[in-house]
């Protein structure tokens, strides 16, 4: 690094004064004099620049850099006082010269800063396409410098410091790395806005990783960010990465010591931990759901042939793929691996694997419920219960024994019903509707299983038939509750349903139709009544889709079937009616 001539005291003072105004006093500007400190700083910088220009016309890098540094700061001021155009001009003036010299220890920080500022101006103007190249340039400068130079570069402020005021190597490194971390963060923003989420996520991961390595982070913030990011990966079915983020979040938050006491700040920690647990639960639910999708056949049952195929494939793969170590080098790596080891990240191919995921999810649930109690976090509590139900539902798909499957569906029904009764629909309308539909579906599933059991038996018992009917009635009841919830205050069903409930309402009617027809009875009049109810339900689906064709697109299979059945049922109704004795007929 070139030795540089001692910076004259007056310049140091003026630069320092400008910084003080911008960093410190600006916070205290009164609301009716908003940019007072910035304007003052601008005056100081103008004066400084004039002095610099007068002083050294001989050239050489240092004077150029000093002048550029002042211009850079002036550009910052322009940004603050919302004169973006002026800022742009200043920066474009110095950028060319700086870019040539960019990989020198004296200049790289400034060069990077200028590129980043230019990028930010365009971000603020909402032009991401223009912003991207600048930020990429800053990123590239960092990479190149690190490749070629061992020592940390000078920090910008050191251009205006006396020899003995300058930073240590360690401090220079810290500032340099931090500047790059900021660049990555802004790149994430721009990529996201340019609809490149994968790239944005990668930048976010890099930023998180760097925060860990530099040990410069707030644990609660970091853990929350890592948890949210894991959600992106989970929804994108990249379970390994998602798991890694969640594991890291868990480890980071667990390291924060918990104090007893009612300190408001510290209450963020239990909340953060609970959120991580909930995200783990969602991880498990999603993993099981995707596992199921992979193995499902046309009617929603486990496709044994496909299962065999996939299991054979898995057996062939000899090498275990490397687990991602996105946070490698960080002190917490071992702890993270340990955490990760508790739950698989591959799609489950059979019951044992599914069970492992289920058990982990279940343990997180217990922990989550400790924080989210029904009486103070109602919505969260209910959603946790819904997830628990979903875990049972997903696990039952893999369970080979049909009686155990029944037990799982029953558990689901019981827990959902229990919480449903607690809720006041006035405040929790959305949740009530969700629960109604889930309960209906669960009863339907259980009923289906019972039907399956009794169809395999020589003599289906009367008890079994009664049970099947009960479940069918329950499902009908819940579907009806849902449909009733859509009525207005006078009890009228709306002509046009709001878009977010259309599909559900149509599915509810469709299912109810099927259920009415499935009800077992030896009573002819009852059978007729059931068939009539069924007919009404199917007709509703058909009719609504005629009046609202776009609704039909949401339920194509159900619509087609409904049309068919509407065509067939009248004949059946006629037949049933005529087979009744005259006094039974209406």
């Amino acid at each position: 690094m070139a030795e540089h001539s001692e910076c004259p005291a007056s310049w140091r003072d003026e630069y320092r004064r400008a910084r003080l105004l911008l960093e410190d006093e600006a916070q205290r500007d009164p609301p009716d004099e908003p940019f007072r400190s910035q304007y003052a700083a601008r005056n100081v910088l103008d004066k400084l620049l004039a002095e610099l220009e007068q002083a050294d016309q001989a050239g050489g890098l240092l004077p150029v850099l000093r002048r550029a540094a002042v211009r850079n700061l002036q550009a910052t001021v322009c940004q603050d006082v919302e004169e973006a155009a002026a800022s742009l001009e200043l920066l474009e003036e110095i950028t060319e010269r700086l870019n040539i010299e960019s990989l020198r220890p004296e200049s790289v920080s400034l060069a990077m800063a200028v590129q980043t500022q230019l990028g930010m101006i365009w971000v603020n103007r909402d032009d991401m396409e223009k912003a991207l190249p600048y930020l990429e340039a800053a990123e590239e400068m960092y990479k190149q410098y690190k490749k070629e130079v061992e020592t940390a570069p000078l920090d910008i402020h050191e251009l205006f410091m006396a020899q003995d005021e300058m930073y240590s190597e360690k401090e220079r490194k810290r500032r340099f790395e931090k500047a790059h971390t900021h660049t990555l963060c802004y790149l994430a923003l721009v990529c996201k806005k340019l609809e490149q989420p994968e790239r944005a996520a990668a930048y976010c991961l890099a930023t998180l990783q760097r925060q860990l390595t530099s040990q410069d982070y707030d644990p609660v913030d970091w853990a929350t960010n890592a948890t949210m990011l894991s959600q992106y990966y989970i929804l994108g079915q990249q379970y390994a990465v998602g798991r890694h983020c969640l594991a890291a979040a868990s480890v980071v938050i667990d390291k924060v010591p918990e104090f007893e006491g009612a300190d408001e700040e510290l209450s963020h920690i239990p909340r953060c931990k609970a959120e991580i647990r909930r995200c783990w639960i969602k991880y498990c639910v999603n993993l099981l759901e995707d596992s199921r999708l992979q193995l499902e056949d046309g009617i929603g049952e486990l496709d044994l042939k496909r299962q065999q195929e996939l299991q054979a494939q898995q057996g062939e793969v000899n090498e275990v793929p490397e687990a991602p170590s996105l946070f490698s080098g960080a002190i917490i790596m071992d702890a993270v691996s340990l955490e990760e080891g508790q739950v698989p990240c591959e799609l489950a191919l059979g019951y044992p694997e599914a069970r492992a995921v289920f058990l982990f999810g279940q343990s997180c649930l217990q922990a989550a419920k400790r924080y989210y109690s029904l009486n103070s976090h109602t919505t969260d509590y209910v959603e946790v219960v819904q997830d628990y139900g979903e875990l049972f539902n997903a696990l039952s798909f893999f369970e080979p024994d049909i009686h155990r499957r029944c037990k799982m569906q029953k558990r689901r029904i019981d827990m959902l019903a229990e919480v449903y009764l607690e809720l006041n629909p006035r405040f929790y309308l959305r949740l009530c509707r969700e629960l109604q539909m889930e309960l209906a579906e669960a009863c339907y599933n259980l009923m289906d299983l019972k039907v399956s059991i009794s169809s395999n038996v020589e003599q289906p018992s009367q008890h079994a038939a009664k049970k099947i009917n009960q479940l069918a009635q329950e499902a009908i009841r819940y579907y009806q509750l849902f449909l009733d919830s859509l009525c207005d205050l006078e009890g009228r069903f709306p002509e046009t349903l709001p878009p977010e409930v259309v599909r559900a309402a149509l599915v509810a009617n469709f299912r109810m139709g099927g259920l009415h027809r499935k009800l077992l009875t030896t009573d002819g009049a009852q059978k007729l009544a059931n068939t009539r109810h069924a007919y009404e339900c199917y007709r509703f689906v058909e009719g609504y889709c005629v009046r609202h064709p776009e609704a039909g697109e949401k339920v194509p299979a159900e619509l087609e079937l409904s049309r068919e059945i509407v065509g067939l049922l009248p004949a059946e109704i006629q037949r049933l009616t005529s087979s009744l004795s005259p006094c039974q007929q209406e």
Partner: protein
Amino acid sequence: SYTMMGPQEPGQEGIIPQLCEELFYRISNNSDPDLSFSVEVSYKEIYCERVRDLLNPKNKGHLRVREHPLLGPYVEDLSKLAVTSYKDIAELMDSGNKARTVAATNMNETSSRSHAVFTIVLTQRRRDPNTDITTEKVSKVSLVDLAGSERADSTGAKGMRLKEGANINKSLTTLGKVISSLAEMDGPGKGKKKRKGEFVPYRDSVLTWLLRENLGGNSRTAMIAALSPADINFDETLSTLRYADRANEIKCNAVV
């Protein structure tokens, strides 16, 4: 504030005074002996995610917000005062507003003004003369004064001025915003169930929590956006319009 409260001059009353006048007019004109009414108000301020009781500002601490399965979201220990006329309400709002100003001075640019929620609860009791049973109908009106929308730009770009030169220790608030928007993206939706966009309301604001019942399903919500025709206010006007546009799209997002 002009729209909501209006100045004190007659003929220029804002929405709240007009609403209250109408309300008490109807109450006082009720001649049905089986009907009785009561009106209660509460006034809370939300500042930096903390809730203060503006009708009891001496309560220095902030109040806890909870959700109860039957009672819905509520603020613990919030004062609820009975009122019998618009004058009562006006006086309470006035003293409440004074309590607000004290809280909101000396801010640096990263914090915004506070939100304030004035709630009127109207209870109508009807006695059935035959059975002597009294039934109650309760209705609630929440009047929300939202803090300035400058911070709420939908692009997230505003308020993120880079100050590289001046302050390298700025925390990475941008990171949270980006990750948040990544997490909100919908899943591929291959399965029968639509994947929920957001798993957990990680940073659900207190305001959203409290207004949940207003924003979803069982109520009517109207938003008034204050705009300025002056060109110096262009940015703020644009920002407000974007905010209102987004608010317009809020749905009751039941996933069934």
